[in-house]
């Protein structure tokens, strides 16, 4: 990405809510940005063949720790969110370290992390006296609506700018990882762990770094979602379906390119909204029906995703081999 085009696009994105103030499209944009950030967080590690199905768990931790800290301890989200991020990082390290230490890879890694999202979902449901269980949970409204202290804003424009900023940071992290030694180490690991270890790559440490980074980012997405929607339920921020939703959107958009997960989020959310508006309640289920078919078709025919394949068409790039885990 060179030239003035990215700057122009960035300026247009920042300026958009001041020109165009219709609340519903802005709401959709905020949702798209938050989920784009979550999907980007997943693909930060997913692109190296570390297929985690536990990210729903990290997102749930991010959302629930923030909300519980606010409601129970009166802790401002400015402290609650860091707490949630630390909790997600600890959880990620506790589960991932033994996985990497004992070479749990491929299917096994996916299934162990699947257990993690299952645990988070069950714990939220089981502690229903505190978390509201499957009925969901609402952070208490701050008196007077908007407050920087409570990180609650009634203005959609504010939220749009916050989500845009976080999304941009997500992309920046993606690029930083892309340009780092960590990336080469992880690509080597994805090709062949033993060979990578033999050439001096510290396999466990490198994998752990990227996993904790990805988990922390995902938890931030969860906290942001909680603060924006002011309602969270185990089904929307945690559990296996959320994990699969992340994997799916990232794969459809393309996990080997920076904007892939964003494209995935745009496609999936716009599709769901269009179906919902045109068919109303009769559309229940149709969006996932289309997603499911798309996911299968994409994995069979376009494993690099929509954006990845488009970029390949435009100019032949260096081959990005599928990691053979």
């Amino acid at each position, binding site marked *: 990405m060179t030239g003035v085009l990215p700057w122009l696009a960035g300026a247009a994105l920042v300026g958009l809510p001041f020109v165009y103030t219709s609340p519903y499209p802005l709401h959709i944009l905020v949702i798209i940005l938050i989920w784009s950030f979550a999907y980007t967080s997943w693909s930060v590690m997913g692109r190296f063949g570390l297929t985690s199905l536990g990210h729903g768990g990290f997102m749930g931790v991010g959302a629930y720790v923030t909300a519980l800290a606010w409601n129970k301890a009166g802790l401002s989200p400015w402290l609650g969110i860091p707490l949630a991020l630390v909790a997600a990082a600890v959880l990620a390290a506790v589960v991932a370290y033994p996985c990497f230490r004992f070479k749990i890879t491929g299917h096994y890694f996916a299934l162990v992390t699947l257990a993690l999202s299952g*645990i988070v979902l069950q714990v939220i449901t089981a502690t229903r006296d505190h978390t509201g269980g499957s009925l969901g949970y609402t952070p208490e409204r701050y008196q007077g609506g908007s407050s920087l202290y409570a990180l609650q804003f009634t203005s959609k424009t504010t939220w749009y700018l916050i989500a845009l900023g976080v999304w941009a940071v997500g992309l920046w992290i993606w690029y930083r990882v892309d340009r780092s030694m960590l990336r080469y180490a992880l690509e080597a690991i994805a090709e062949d762990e033993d060979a990578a270890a033999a050439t001096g790559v510290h396999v466990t440490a490198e994998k752990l770094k990227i996993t904790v980074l990805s988990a922390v980012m995902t938890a931030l997405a969860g906290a942001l979602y909680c603060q924006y929607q002011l309602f969270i339920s185990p089904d929307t921020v945690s559990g296996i379906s959320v994990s699969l939703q992340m994997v799916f959107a990232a794969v459809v958009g393309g996990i080997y390119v920076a904007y892939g997960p964003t494209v995935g989020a745009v496609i999936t959310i716009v599709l769901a909204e269009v179906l919902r508006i045109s068919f109303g309640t009769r559309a229940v289920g149709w969006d996932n029906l289309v997603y499911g078919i798309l996911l299968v078709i994409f994995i069979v025919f376009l494993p690099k995703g929509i954006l990845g394949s488009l970029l390949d068409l435009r100019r032949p790039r260096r081959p990005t081999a599928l990691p053979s885990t």
Partner: protein
Amino acid sequence: MGIFDIYLLEALINGVLLGGVLALLSLGLNLIFGVIDVVWICYAELIMLGMYGMYFLYSVYHLPLVAAGVVCIAGVAVLGVLLHVVVISPLLGAAPINQLLATGGVLFFLQSAATVMFGVEFKNLGMRLPVLKLSGMFISYSRLLAFGFALVGMVLVYLFLTRTYTGTAIRAISQDRQIMVLMGVDSRRIYLITSALGGGLAGLAACLLVLQYDIHPFVGLSFGPITFLICVLGSLGNFAGGFVAAFVFAEIIALGGLYSDLEWGYVLAFAFFIVMMFIRPQGLMARRS
């Protein structure tokens, strides 16, 4: 103290009964993994469709229960073959993770197809089997029945795998995929038979679960994850390991549920799983390499 012991015994027995069904669930998944080297993430959704099949055949079209069960098993077996032909076989050479994700897509598809076709309302067969009272303990017949049929199903599969030519070929392929093809085994045919068998086991599980649980499009999520964990705990593809792990898990859930809510039983089981992964990363019974 006496009352407490009765409850404990009841929970233990219910755990064993649950274990039988879980063992059946893990057997199908293990069979698919052991032979084709693919994890059907959508396995529980096949069971969900089977349960809907039972509901329509029995409650709407009024087939006798046994006939409905037979049709249901055959139907899900066909679904298993379809899944293999349409989704798995084009991906046989792809990275394992892609196969896993593709079946994840099928999971989304089946869940939402069920939502679109059948709605989100809970359905059940509308029949309540009596409860067996045994010296102060309550054990439901539907669980006993499920346990019994699960055992019979497992014994039949065991006999098929050990006593028939095809079964021997299936076991051979699960031990060495390359050599057996050189020995003249048609791996495509074996894969199709295995998929049908795996689907059939899902169908049988559906017939048994529908006796105890309500049917809704997301019912698969309530026992799908636990099945994967059992298979991993018992080492993916290891039939005996899956069998043992199923009973260990079922007892943890039943006993955990005795002292607290059922969810805590599940939390305990999941936590146990993660701890076991640290201690025995390759599963309870590590597969011969």
